[in-house]
């Protein structure tokens, strides 16, 4: 037989993302708002792209990487067989999901609050929060990672936080620049969710009401248990 296709579920990763909008309290013009963007590290997945403040939620990432490293110690030239054996052990054990730091939106908001504090000096307890709401979750497939972005939207009164100079790594950019920035596709879905939310908010004049027009591209398998927890894998 000519080809092999060993079916494997991609590695699951989850990530909390927060779209922070800084809005002059006395402005009705949505174009006066600024959004917080951070640059990704220069190496690794999506290197150098801009993204919203994000926290990886998978604790075991580090452990996993370590074991992967152990498996390729020699620097010998190998064939182009770029197998992904590294992940097979997880597969076999029947638990393809890594351990999560936060299971629900409350926990995620707490983690994100700390992250904004330590990384950007934004103290949510002392600043004036105009709105904070979940946008939903967006799933993005990379070559061997299935990444779930849990998006929230945070609107802060611009007068209640200190102005910080833009740097190479952190910037506050306008709504129009947002549309042009080099942001990973996965997060662009988040922008869309936020824009819908904003539209609704603006039109309806009532906040935290049931949203409409927000078409979330939800993963249909989200929230569904894994079949492997019910059925046994047969020995071959």
């Amino acid at each position, binding site marked *: 037989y000519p080809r092999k296709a060993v079916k494997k579920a991609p590695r699951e990763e989850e990530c909390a993302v927060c779209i922070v909008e800084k809005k002059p309290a006395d402005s009705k013009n949505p174009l006066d708002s600024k959004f917080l963007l951070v640059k990704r590290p220069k190496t690794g997945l999506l290197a150098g792209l801009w993204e919203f403040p994000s926290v990886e939620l998978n604790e075991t990432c580090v452990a996993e990487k370590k074991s992967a490293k152990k498996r390729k110690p020699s620097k010998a030239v190998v064939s182009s067989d770029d197998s992904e054996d590294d992940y097979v052990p997880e597969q076999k054990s029947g638990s393809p999901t890594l351990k999560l730091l936060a299971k629900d939106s409350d926990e995620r908001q707490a983690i994100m609050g700390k992250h904004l504090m330590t990384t950007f000096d934004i103290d949510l307890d002392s600043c004036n929060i105009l709105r904070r709401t979940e946008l939903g979750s967006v799933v993005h497939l990379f070559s061997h990672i299935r990444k779930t972005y849990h998006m929230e939207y945070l609107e802060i009164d611009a007068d209640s936080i200190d102005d910080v100079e833009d740097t190479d790594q952190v910037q506050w950019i306008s709504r129009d620049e947002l549309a042009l920035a080099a942001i990973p596709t996965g997060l662009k879905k988040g922008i869309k969710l936020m824009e819908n939310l904003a539209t609704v908010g603006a039109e309806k004049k009532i906040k935290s009401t049931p949203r409409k027009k927000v078409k979330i591209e939800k993963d249909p398998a989200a929230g569904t248990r894994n079949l492997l927890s019910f059925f046994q*894998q047969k020995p071959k």
Partner: protein
Amino acid sequence: MLEARLQQAKLLKSLLEAIKELVTECNFDCNDSGIALQAMDNSHVALVALLLRSDGFDPYRCDRNLPLGLNLTNLNKILKCAGNDDILTLKADDGGDTLSLVFESKDNDKICEYDLKLMDIDSEHLGIPDTSYDAIVHMSSAEFQRICRDLSQISESVKIDATKDGIKFSGEGEVGNGSITLKQNANVDNEDEATRIELQQSVSLTFSLKYLANFTKATPLSTRVTLSMSNDVPLLVEYKLDNLGYVRYYLAPKIGEEN
């Protein structure tokens, strides 16, 4: 060696339509009792199991176990070239690397021969335990399809409640809420339309509508569908093929209050 002749290509065409969105590549396991397939979707929440018994073919020959690793998208391309009423013959050699499909039209002198490349697929077989379900609902497959489609308009998941009086499908979303109730009605005139419920115990389970809607691609295969449910156990959705076998789908339930 496999040689299996089917009087109507339509059956295999419809079967492919019923499973190709869920599974892209899998083994057709052929042996003397027939052709079977078992595969999970990529997210590992749904499973499809297919059986075509040997006596549905005429003739049927398969001396020893022969797994045929197939790309279903490619197989479907070739099956689209068969007329619904063509006679279809599957052939494969034991050591070969192709599946041969021959379509013969009944009314004119046309013969089509296609060779599909095989793949070596390392499939994982799951043991599905025998379960005595708390609720087994027999209903019209078209009605089930309609219900899944309708609720998809407003919701991403469906809660199924089966009681002795009937079965209720409900969902909720941004737009509002909706529910569809079918009453048990064993005595209706139209046998295909009847809803019958075998109940040990009431059940209430929530599932992803997208997957259920996917399963209903099998609707053309049978006028009836059976939903077998127990709380906290995967749903079994079964379409029986007349005298030939079945397509079964399993779907894990949703967890907790999230939908």
